[in-house]
């Protein structure tokens, strides 16, 4: 009987094990199957073009493909020695350093406002978020009219400066415009983070008699560190990719006086005006390396503090 049961249990255990293995395999199959689709899309639209861009960056490459003139690192040399590329890097550095803190400050302020129990909270949340979902082309075009020499803004302040046509003011006008349009998205991230802060800490602070200002700087702001890091990386990279507003404001010239020539505009200009796709690809690779390096530095500094 025992023997019978022993011999009977082994196949039953084997059967159970094989069923488990089969179920796990099936589960893994489904998992890989589901993952395969986005990986394939990512590979097709991101990894493959990136590898292809690296490849063509070593050739003279026109509209119809490879052109005569050999291969090598000449495109990289051209980009690295081009004063316009240097100007583009300087412009985007100035822009990013100003616009990102501004976006974060504005977004956080709006989030703090929306986080209060105020009447019409939902309306304000939608209203503040609206510029983020509106077309940047449409918003920039409207801004060009408002800030034109004879536009609404000048009529209010009594000036006649064409804010988007002057080399001294165009970049800062774009900074103002983008800080406003992006603040809605920043607000949402901060709002989500604010709602994860437990009430206990605020109650403890209230018991201790801590004022609102001190509570914000000593409790809220430090507890938002993960959101700060996330927003800094996401909107920092977004700022480094400035193109459409610069393109529209300058009527496709990157001017006046290269004031709106950003690295992405430089890449576009090399590809679609100079028809030198090799140089454009080389500039793209160089810029990728710069952004990658900055992100790693950011991760090692702000990110490490956040993890701690």
């Amino acid at each position, binding site marked *: 009987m025992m023997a019978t049961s022993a011999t009977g249990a082994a196949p039953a255990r084997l059967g159970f094990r094989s069923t488990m293995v089969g179920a796990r395999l099936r589960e893994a199959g489904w998992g890989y199957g589901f993952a395969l689709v986005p990986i394939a899309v990512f590979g097709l639209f991101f990894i493959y073009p990136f590898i292809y861009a690296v490849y063509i960056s070593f050739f003279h490459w026109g509209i119809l493909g490879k052109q005569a003139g050999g291969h090598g690192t000449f495109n990289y040399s051209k980009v690295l020695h081009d004063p316009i590329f240097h100007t583009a890097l300087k412009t985007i550095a100035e822009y990013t350093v100003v616009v990102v803190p501004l976006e974060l400050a504005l977004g956080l302020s709006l989030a703090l406002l929306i986080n209060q129990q105020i009447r019409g909270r939902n309306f304000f949340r939608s209203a503040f978020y609206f510029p983020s979902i509106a077309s940047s082309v449409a918003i920039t075009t409207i801004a060009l009219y408002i800030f*034109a020499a004879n536009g609404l803004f000048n009529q209010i302040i009594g000036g006649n400066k064409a804010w988007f046509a002057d080399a001294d003011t165009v970049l800062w006008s774009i900074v103002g415009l983008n800080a406003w349009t992006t603040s809605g998205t920043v607000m949402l991230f901060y709002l989500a983070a604010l709602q994860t802060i437990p009430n206990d800490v605020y109650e403890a602070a209230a018991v201790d008699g801590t004022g609102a200002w001190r509570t914000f700087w000593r409790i809220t702001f430090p507890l938002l560190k993960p959101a700060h890091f996330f927003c800094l990386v996401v909107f920092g990279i977004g700022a480094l990719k400035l193109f459409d507003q610069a393109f529209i404001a300058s009527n*496709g010239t990157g*001017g*006046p*006086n290269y004031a709106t020539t950003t690295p992405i505009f430089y890449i576009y200009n090399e590809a679609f*005006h*100079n028809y030198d796709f090799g140089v454009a690809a080389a500039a793209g690779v160089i810029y990728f390396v710069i952004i990658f390096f900055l992100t790693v530095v950011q991760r090692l500094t702000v990110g490490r503090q956040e993890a701690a």
Partner: protein
Amino acid sequence: MTKRLAMVLGLVALAVALVAASAQAGHKTHKVTEVTVAGWSSGGDEDNLLQQVINVFNKTHPSVHATLQIINTNYGDAMTARFAAHNPPDVFYVDSYVAGAWEKQKVLQPLNGYIKKSHYNTKKFYPKLLGAFMHGKTIYGFPKDWSPLATETNNGLFAKAGIRKAPKTWAQLKSDAKTLQQHGVAHPICLSPDWARMLAFIYQNGGSIKNVQSKASAQAVNFYVGLLKSGLAATSSQLGDGWCGQALGDGHSAIIFEGNWLLPYMKSTYPNVKYGVSPMVKGKVRGNLAFTVSYSMSTFTKNKQAAWTLLSWLEGKKGERLWMSKGLALSPRSDVKTIGGRAPFLASAPYSHGWGFGNPNFNAAYTVMSNDITAVIKGDKTVQQMLADVAAALKGQ
């Protein structure tokens, strides 16, 4: 019964076969080749007129059927993507400023073979306009229409200052501007910070795009920028206007230099403003720019003969006559008249240089020109530096 049924079936089969054969034969004799023609939108009137012209072509050419595609996005970028995909339209617009670059990229079909084969007469086109679409002796397209610049003046402001005629020379331009200034017009001339205006002055001083670093070119740039720096002229944005046409209409300036496109704008926006159109001012010599667009053929078209049939008809006397029928543009052919009121523009045909000048690097160089001219006006760059930058860009450096 079986025999009768077999006979009936046989007759039916024969009838079907005969109908099929005749249909096949008919199909062979009326084979229609499809071609596409593409351009950008220049407004409802022009789009409708172009469709009417294409309809007439389709009616008169039963063996070729042309379909119009209007590209509403950034035309140059859209066409570049189509070239890269080896799938552009068969016949399409080419702006003269980009013609040289597209020729170099080998996306435009040389037309000399078709011209020779069909004995097509190219002599009726104004040579300088045709030259904008030529590289050496190879023709890559024919101009479909064009516009030079002219001197436009605000009659009211001129009358107020007691000036009777539009300026004809640089000296008169300056003296008229001074008189207008004395009569309350702060900046009598509206000048665009744009080589698409300044180059006309360079040609008027004996300079050219080929010797852009010459003394004559530098003198002309100094004259142009000098007008702005002295306050006799201002840019449209300094005047608080979107462009110089608006400045003329608003009475913010009395003298501007614009093309044929000003006329419909003034008619619709400032119908009550009286203004005059005179030939472009003259320096040491006469000089002007011709902004022109061609119909060209793609190197990828599978139906080259049909595309040539369409292109040569559109550019021929009949096609051009239809295209000119509503007076929306100037004729590029000496044997097709332009509808009235355009004499000051047409007069400059012999000395107008096609914008782009056949230079393969012009498209890229124009970005440098646009940025450098603003730097020179602002005082951030010298004229010599700008001319050196432009010369290098024109060489593709």
